[in-house]
């Protein structure tokens, strides 16, 4: 699909509406990243409300400004993987343990159910799931400060 053949708008309900090359309107389309962690800016699909792929974007940056902004806005409103910047405190080293963390989305607390909810995505990257299924990312363990590292280390 070539990029200029389709159009993207936002309707009054705040939903994205895609008009495809054949002029068909798809209401409530959703942009989805294929590799949200490994390569967030590559391979973005626009998917219809019932889950079928409508448009495939190799790179978001290649898009004209208007649809790109809409897509970025929508992604920002859907994606929720707070990145942990600092561990302020943990309630105990035995799980379940309540963690107070600073993330790129502000400070919050969550409950870690067990050590197995911390998954290694690479040598330095961690994905931590809380009891409600929210995923927290630690992009680089080495980039955390000493205290956070030491706290985190107790669970690894």
């Amino acid at each position: 699909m070539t990029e200029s053949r389709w159009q993207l708008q936002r309707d009054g309900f705040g939903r994205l509406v895609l008009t495809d090359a054949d002029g068909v309107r798809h209401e409530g389309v959703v942009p989805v990243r294929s590799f949200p962690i490994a390569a967030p800016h590559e391979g973005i699909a626009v998917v219809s409300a019932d889950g079928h792929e409508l448009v495939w974007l190799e790179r978001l940056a290649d898009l004209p400004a208007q649809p790109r902004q809409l897509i970025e806005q929508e992604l920002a409103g859907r994606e929720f993987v707070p990145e942990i910047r600092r561990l302020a405190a943990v309630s105990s080293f035995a799980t379940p343990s309540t963690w107070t963390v600073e993330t790129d989305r502000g400070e919050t607390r969550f409950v870690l159910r067990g050590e197995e909810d911390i998954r290694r995505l690479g040598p330095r990257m961690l994905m931590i799931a809380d009891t409600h299924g929210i995923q927290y990312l630690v992009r680089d363990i080495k980039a955390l400060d000493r205290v956070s590292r030491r706290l985190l280390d107790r669970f690894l």
Partner: protein
Amino acid sequence: MTQDSPPSNIVRSPVPESWRTALGIRLLPEENVLACLEVDLDERLRFAPGLVALTEARLLAAGAAGEAWSEWPLGAGLSLLHHDHAGVGTVELRNTESRLGAWRYTLAQNLAALRLITQFEAQQHLLRTGVPPDPDGDNLCPTCKAPLPPDEDECPVCTRELHTPPSTWTLFRLWRFARPYEGQLLTGFLLMLGATAATLVSPYLYLPLMDEVLIPFQNGQHIAPTTVAWYLGGLLAAALVSWSLGWAKTYILALVSERISADMRTSTYEHLLHLSLEYFGGKRTGDLISRIGSESDRISVFLSLHALDFITDVLMIVMTAVILVSINPWLALVTLLPLPFIAWMIHLVRDRLRTGFEKIDRVWGEVTNVLSDTIPGIRVVKAFAQEQREVDRFREANRHNLQLNDRLNKTWSLFSPTVSFLTEVGLLVVWAFGIWQVSQHRVTVGTLTAFLAYIGRFYGRLDSMSRIVSVTQRAAAGAKRIFDILDHVSTVPEPLNPVQLPAVRGAIELRDVAFRYGNRSVIRGLSLTIHPGEMIGLVGHSGSGKSTLVNLICRFYDVSEGAIRVDGIDIRSLTVADYRRHIGLVLQEPFLFFGSIADNIAYGRPGASRAEIVAAARAAHAHEFILRLPQGYDSLVGERGQGLSGGERQRISIARALLIDPRMLILDEATSSVDTETEKEIQRALDNLVAGRTTIAIAHRLSTLRKADRLVVMDRGRIVEVGHHDELMERQGAYWRLYQAQLRTAESHLDD
């Protein structure tokens, strides 16, 4: 959440403390807050507080403190919608033309959000018709639709999650397993006391031997043989007593500790088997096996060897200290001086060692996980020629293990020599002080000899006591991992006051069922009523939630929202075992346990007679092929039923389901893994099974579901169509598309 004295204008749902004043001043006189949702995310999904409140006439909302409030009067056309994605819930306010507002929250607030929506709809209904809506039967929880206890807002089913960490004094919790052996433990302890005391007799005899025999001899006096014989006899007697008592104590206590760890292993396994499938889904097999196997063994060794030694050591130190003080307080003081210092050192190293050992345990789990991943999947590994990659993965896990061990050993290797060094220094101090005292004629040579003999043992014990630190930490880490399992409350909990299930008719009612796996919503707002004896065919693409639905009906998982009722009784109010007794399950991959065919058929009813087993096998069309086996019903089959074909195994599992004579039957792709010819045989067996039972069948091949009374078509967690085959074909909807697609593949297969 419950407040003691709500302000007068806030009646039922309590407004969070932090919003009381801000909201209070916006309310009109006589205006009450009906429901409140404290949101914790803003529209850019940053953590920020906000509030959505519903009163009789308005919906009020505020972002972060200090921001302007928005409000919408309730009225026609307004609706409040809610959906969630990746752990974030959204509540949207809409009128007929556009979205008026949207609020986001993490799923922790989901309950409040659902409550807000229920209240909103009730209030809209009231404004529109002037009558309050029919309360839905009794007072129901907005999330799970389970009846709430009278006068309570919190649903006992929803709020059961346990978030308190287990105590750090984990090892003391082993007492729970030790209690049955109190008597033996006490005997063992008394024997230990006696044995230790006996060992302390001999250094005490050095004193008179030195002062009354050797020193006088050096000064030219004669050695009296009887005195010497008495003393030496005393030494021998002490050694004999301590030997026999020590033997008895070690024997009794080792016996007890083995029993304690065996009990622990069994109850951990028992507890583990009662946990829900969700728990098993999230754990690796290797990790669980190592927890139950090696951790409990480690604890047993700790109890029978190390803990025992440690208590002996403590006893010895206390007794020695008492003896030393009684002989010469000053010398005793000097002797005991290094003790606190060593204790402090031990304490210092403790923390570092404990975390180190915990880590090593986890890494060890990693190593076994690689094994338990690879060995069952060996065909895939070999097929894709990835042996080297798996070896590398194993090597990597091992390297990680080594790395951690190395780091720990740095501390550990320094620790023991330091303690030995301190011991030597301590001895040196005693020698120096002792010689000075002897030169001042304050103590005799005999006293000094006895002291040196005592503290030789004494410091020796300290050295071995320092070793206890690491084994204790190791055992505590092991105990923690075991209690992790024991503390895990099943997500499919047994009800406190179970309802007795009378004779089951087999009516199943699903009411607004939703299920979330992690943050992925698998089933949403699903309602279905199944009549007794009806056969339902579940169809849909893979991933449409069919198997999940079946798992929910079997209560392998509990619903996240809504309720499942059997004959009008919520299945959560029945005991799990009692309920499952009425369900027969035939899976795609039948699992045969190690044992004879007869045992496998009688798995669900171990007491079944041979005649019943044969009857079940006959009805399942398994009788004849079983007779063809050399040992008939006594033929042994392995874990995956080696030697039996897929169809044969399947018919055994059908016989297994037939034997328990369940009222409800679940066939999960029972005929998918066999060829068409075998399928026909199985189908005949299934027809016997299905007769007269409420049946839910999942089948990929739609042709196998022709006999179903109703077909339920599912798509992405919802029911999209319900009806008989002919009806659905006529409608040309989702079912028709599925059917056409299968027809086409069937044809293309024929073309090939």
